[in-house]
């Protein structure tokens, strides 16, 4: 279990290797990488500014990760979330989960991403030709979160 909030980029292959280092009991590793898209709602995006709440962000990510580990049989997990100014194509977020079985690894990764979307104190501002604007929270993301309560 490990969480990083950083301005720097990350290396998915290296993070995955670190998670599995010296182990032969892992059956499945799932990774999710989120990237800055060059378009949003039909408008070209020049860059994205990610603001966060230092102190609370780390706490929130650790809590989210602990919840996933309590709920699924995970052998390892990793969350990296960047902040600052990012260009289209840049990596924003990485979630890794390792488990003996594929279903647990997939579900835990989806759970972590659903929580990060709506419960981690990050705010995105997209730069367009018409100026910068804050990304609205999507109702679909809030709905995605609810499915984890029902189970």
């Amino acid at each position, binding site marked *: 279990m490990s969480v990083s909030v950083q301005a720097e980029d990350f290396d998915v292959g290296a993070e995955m290797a670190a998670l599995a280092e010296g182990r032969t009991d892992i059956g499945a590793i799932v990774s999710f990488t989120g990237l800055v898209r060059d378009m949003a709602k039909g408008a070209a995006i020049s860059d994205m500014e990610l603001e966060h709440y230092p102190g*609370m962000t780390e706490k929130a990510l650790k809590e989210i990760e602990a919840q996933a580990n309590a709920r699924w049989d995970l052998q390892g997990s990793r969350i990296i979330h960047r902040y600052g100014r990012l260009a289209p194509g840049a990596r*924003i977020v990485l979630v890794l989960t390792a488990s003996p079985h594929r279903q647990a690894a997939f579900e835990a990764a989806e759970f972590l991403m659903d929580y990060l979307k709506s419960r981690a*104190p990050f*705010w995105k501002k997209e730069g367009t030709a018409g100026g910068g604007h*804050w*990304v609205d*929270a999507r109702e679909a993301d809030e709905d995605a979160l609810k499915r984890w309560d029902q189970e």
Partner: protein
Amino acid sequence: MQVLYFAWLRERIGIPREEVETSAVTVADLVAELRGREPRYELAFSDMKSVRVALDQELSSLDASLDGVREVAFFPPMTGG
């Protein structure tokens, strides 16, 4: 107490944080007090459906008590991931 603002709340109010002396009992009381100060606060807090609050870095609600709280943060719904 320290009051923090993020994203468009920060932009509308014009500062990222400030020290506030208050006798407000709940978060809602504090919001009412801030709104009474100046139009920029009135504007920032005009749509409370779009405002979230954290007390000492834990997500909380508008009717929560401020008793013993040292850091209050206001921000829009989060858009991480």
